[in-house]
């Protein structure tokens, strides 16, 4: 298991949990919105793990 795999599972589970938090937080709108932010940030982290901070075709 590489570091990238571990990070993928960490951020993937964070994305799922915070997405659930967004849907289930019906009493507290701000907490729901912040869960959405956490979801987006963890999706961004997964995107980075795919090395998309480089242009396609550029040297890694």
């Amino acid at each position, binding site marked *: 298991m590489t570091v990238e795999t571990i990070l993928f599972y960490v951020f993937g589970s964070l994305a799922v949990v915070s997405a659930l938090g967004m849907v289930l937080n019906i009493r507290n709108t*701000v907490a729901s919105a*912040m869960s959405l*932010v956490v979801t987006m*940030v963890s999706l961004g982290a997964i995107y980075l793990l795919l090395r998309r*901070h*480089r*242009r396609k075709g*550029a040297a890694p």
Partner: protein
Amino acid sequence: MLIEATVKVLFIFAVMVMGLAPIITWIERKQSAVMQDRIGANRADLSGITVLGLLHPAADVIKLMTKEDVVPDGANRVMHMLSPLIAAVPALIAFAVIPFGGVYQFGDTTLNLVGADIDWGLLYIFAIGSIAAYGTVLAGWSSNNNWSMLGGLRASAQMISYEVTMGLTVVGVFMVFQTLRLSDMALAQDTSFRLFGFLELYFGLDGGVIGWLIEHIRVPAWGIVYQPLGFLMFLTAIMAENKRPPFDIPEGESEIIAGYHLEYSGMRFGLFFMSEFIEIIIIAALTATIFLGGWSVPWWTTAEIIDLVSPVMGVGFATGLCILIHFATFMLKVIVMIWVQMLIRWSLPRFRYDQVMSLCWKILLPLSVANIFVTGVVLLWLKG
């Protein structure tokens, strides 16, 4: 690789954050004092030694660390504790993509003086900067105080409005340099062009005194030369994004006491305070990189400096000297931009809320779109 990255991160933190940020609080006190014909901070002393008031930043930190951390009744505790961190962390990590030196060759090893050289560096800074808006808005909301709430609402409106404009004002620079990567952008400005070259090109003037003048009157190819209007608009927008006077309507002491950080005390207030001052350095470094040539020395390109020094001292020493010169130039530009911001902050009174909003949507936004249009037309015309 890991060691190199760690050293760079520690260096950025030591120089930019830990070194420059406390000094800026001193600069702000002293500069305002000079501008208002006062003496300024000089009372913090260690057995009679005051060092021109330079001990005040240390006294500030000790005071903020030892003060009681109050959470008001009825506040959302988690958000109240979290929001200073959300405001401070983006300010700290935005330095990662700002180059403080160029790319240097030592034999077959390459030294690239930027924390993380990612291809969309400027977009990264904009993305990180919009996270900082959450910190202020949540701080206002979670304090259970109407003044804080008003401050948070004002902050959200102002920061989101100016983010749009801030993005549009630098599009002209992308079009000129054809890149979003800050290190490439600084490298593209490490040159100069002939100011009157068009005379030779279109009117065939060359030879004699006129030819010599055309050849030797050169202008550094900085972003501010290509995009003067873009520079002014970007500086306005990014200073409004930092919420300091004259754009400090979210704080507005005379109207809503202290706005979003009214209910904060101790080091949690200190984090808001610190992030504001770190953002000043980021603004200075970013404008220096995009518009003022970054680390490049005007009229002296990297190759010219190395060629000049290397016959005397050798190539390795010349490259090392070049790194020092470039870093000193970058810091000089940063300090000049910090000085300009302080000058604006202490010269202008606070704008009214509607003035700030109409400046953004009715003046800056149409002007930046017009700037993009004119830049596009000129670039197309130059390419023929």
